[in-house]
C-alpha cells in the first residue's frame, strides 16, 4: 500500500519509536505515583520528554509543557481554561472541529465569536484579524496550517496584531509541530497545542499544550495528581494543575524517541523531503484535465497536503477507487473542517486529500500522479 494520509496520522515512524513503547510497557511504572524504581523510571521518561518538547517548541519552561491524549484535548483545555461568557474570541474559517466545537459550546454559554473568512483557495487576509480584533477581544485561536489545504498562516504577524490589542494567541499546531518552524516564544504564541502522532512521528494517544509562563488556565479536569492528596482542590502548580489522572508514559516514551530522532536528523531536512514530495505531486496533477486542486501553493512554507477533486465525482468514490484499484490510501470527505469546505465550495462533494511524509518516496508520488491521471481520464 502507498500511504498518503499522513495528515491523519504518521504510519511510517522511526523504528526506535515502537521499540521505546515496547520497552516502556515492559519496564515503566506509574509516573508521579510512587518513589520506587519503576515509578521513578516513568517519571524520568515523562520529564525528559517535557524537556525535549520545551526545547523543540520554544517553551521557556519544561513544567509548562502539559501532556494530553491528543491536540483536541489540549485545545479543549486551552479554550475552556481561558474563555468564558461575556468574552469575545476571534478564529478562522480554516479551523478543525477540535477548535470549532469547543468554541460553539462556549458560544452557547455566552461567548461572542467572530471568524476571519477564507477565500476560494483557502487564503485569509491578515488585515481581517485587525478588523475583527475589536476592543474587549480576549483571545485569537487559529490553526497554524489547514488540515484540508495545507495553507499556513503567518503566526508571527497574527501574534503581533493580537498582542497589540491586548489579546492572547492560542495556536492549533496539529498539522505543523515537527513540520514547520515553530518557536512559541519567538513567534509570540501564548498557548501552543500539538499532537504527538502526526508530524512529530510519535504514537497516538500523545499530545499536549505549551503555556507561556505567567498565563493562568483554569483546570479542565480534576482528579489524581500524585501530590497534595488531602487538598480538595486540584493542585495549582503546572503541569499538575492540568494533568489529572495517569499519564500515557508508554506513549510518551515513544514520543521521546521520536524527538531524539529529530535531534539527530533535523526537522529542516525532514521538512525538505516532505515538501519535495508534496510539490512533485502538485506539479504532477495540477494541469490534468478535470482536476481541481485547492489551496495556495505560492508560499514557501506549507503543510505537506494536496487536496483535489476530479470533475464532480464524489470524493469518497475517488478515494475508494484509489484504495481498491491502485493501493493508495488517501482521505475523502469533510476532514472535520466544515467552514473550510464551505469556503472552498466543496461542502457537497468533499475533497480527496493526499498528505505526505518525510518517508514518502518519489516512486510513490509518481504512482499517485499516474493513478489520478487514469481516474481523471475515465
Amino acid at each position: 500500500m502507498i500511504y498518503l494520509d499522513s495528515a491523519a496520522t504518521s504510519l511510517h515512524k522511526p523504528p526506535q519509536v515502537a521499540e521505546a513503547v515496547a520497552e516502556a510497557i515492559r519496564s515503566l511504572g506509574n509516573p508521579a505515583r510512587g518513589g520506587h524504581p519503576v515509578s521513578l523510571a516513568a517519571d524520568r521518561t515523562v520529564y525528559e520528554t517535557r524537556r525535549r518538547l520545551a526545547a523543540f517548541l520554544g517553551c521557556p519552561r519544561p513544567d509548562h509543557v502539559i501532556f494530553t491524549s491528543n491536540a483536541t484535548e489540549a485545545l479543549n483545555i486551552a479554550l475552556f481554561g481561558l474563555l468564558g461568557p461575556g468574552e469575545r474570541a476571534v478564529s478562522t474559517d480554516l479551523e478543525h472541529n477540535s477548535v470549532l466545537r469547543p468554541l460553539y459550546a462556549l458560544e452557547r454559554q455566552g461567548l461572542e465569536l467572530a471568524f476571519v473568512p477564507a477565500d476560494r483557495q483557502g487564503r485569509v487576509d491578515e488585515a481581517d484579524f485587525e478588523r475583527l480584533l475589536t476592543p474587549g477581544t480576549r483571545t485569537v485561536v487559529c490553526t497554524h496550517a489547514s488540515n484540508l489545504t495545507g495553507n499556513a498562516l503567518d503566526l508571527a504577524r497574527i501574534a503581533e496584531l493580537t498582542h497589540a490589542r491586548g489579546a492572547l494567541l492560542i495556536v492549533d499546531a496539529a498539522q505543523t509541530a515537527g513540520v514547520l518552524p515553530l518557536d512559541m516564544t519567538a513567534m509570540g504564541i501564548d498557548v501552543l497545542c500539538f499532537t504527538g502522532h502526526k508530524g512529530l512521528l510519535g504514537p497516538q494517544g500523545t499530545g499536549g499544550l505549551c503555556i507561556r509562563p505567567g498565563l493562568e488556565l483554569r483546570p479542565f479536569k480534576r482528579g489524581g495528581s500524585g501530590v497534595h492528596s488531602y487538598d480538595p482542590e486540584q493542585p495549582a502548580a503546572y503541569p499538575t494543575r492540568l494533568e489529572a489522572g495517569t499519564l500515557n508514559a508508554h506513549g510518551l516514551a515513544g514520543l521521546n524517541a521520536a524527538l531524539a530522532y529529530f535531534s539527530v536528523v533535523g526537522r529542516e531536512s525532514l521538512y525538505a523531503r516532505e515538501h519535495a514530495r508534496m510539490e512533485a505531486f502538485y506539479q504532477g496533477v495540477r494541469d490534468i484535465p478535470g482536476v481541481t486542486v485547492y489551496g495556495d501553493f505560492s508560499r514557501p512554507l506549507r503543510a505537506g497536503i494536496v487536496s483535489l477533486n476530479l470533475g464532480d465525482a464524489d470524493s469518497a468514490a475517488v478515494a475508494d477507487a484509489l484504495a481498491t484499484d491502485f493501493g493508495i490510501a488517501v482521505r475523502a470527505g469533510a476532514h472535520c473542517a466544515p467552514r473550510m469546505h464551505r469556503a472552498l465550495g466543496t461542502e457537497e462533494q468533499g475533497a480527496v486529500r493526499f498528505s505526505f511524509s518525510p518517508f514518502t518516496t518519489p516512486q510513490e508520488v509518481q504512482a499517485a500522479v499516474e493513478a489520478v491521471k487514469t481516474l481523471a481520464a475515465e
Partner: protein
Amino acid sequence: MRPRRPTLFFSFAATAAAMEAERLCRAAGQPGRLVPVPRQITAGCGLAWMASPEDGEALRAFFKAEGLEYEGCHLIEF
C-alpha cells in the same frame, strides 16, 4: 523498623519540579536521592529530595543558583 535519624528533605509543588531537582543534582554530583515524601511533611503523596543535614546549606545554595523552586526544606527524624 530501622532507627530514625535526623534527615533533610526538600519538597516540591509538582513531580516535574522533583524530576528537575534530580536531573540537576545528578548532573552536578550533588548528594541525595528522590524518595516518597514523609508524612511529617505532607500527609499526601509525592516525591522529596532526601539528603544528610550536613549537605543542607550546599543544596540550598545549589538550588538557588539553578533557579529551582522547592516548596520547603524540612529537617525531620526519618
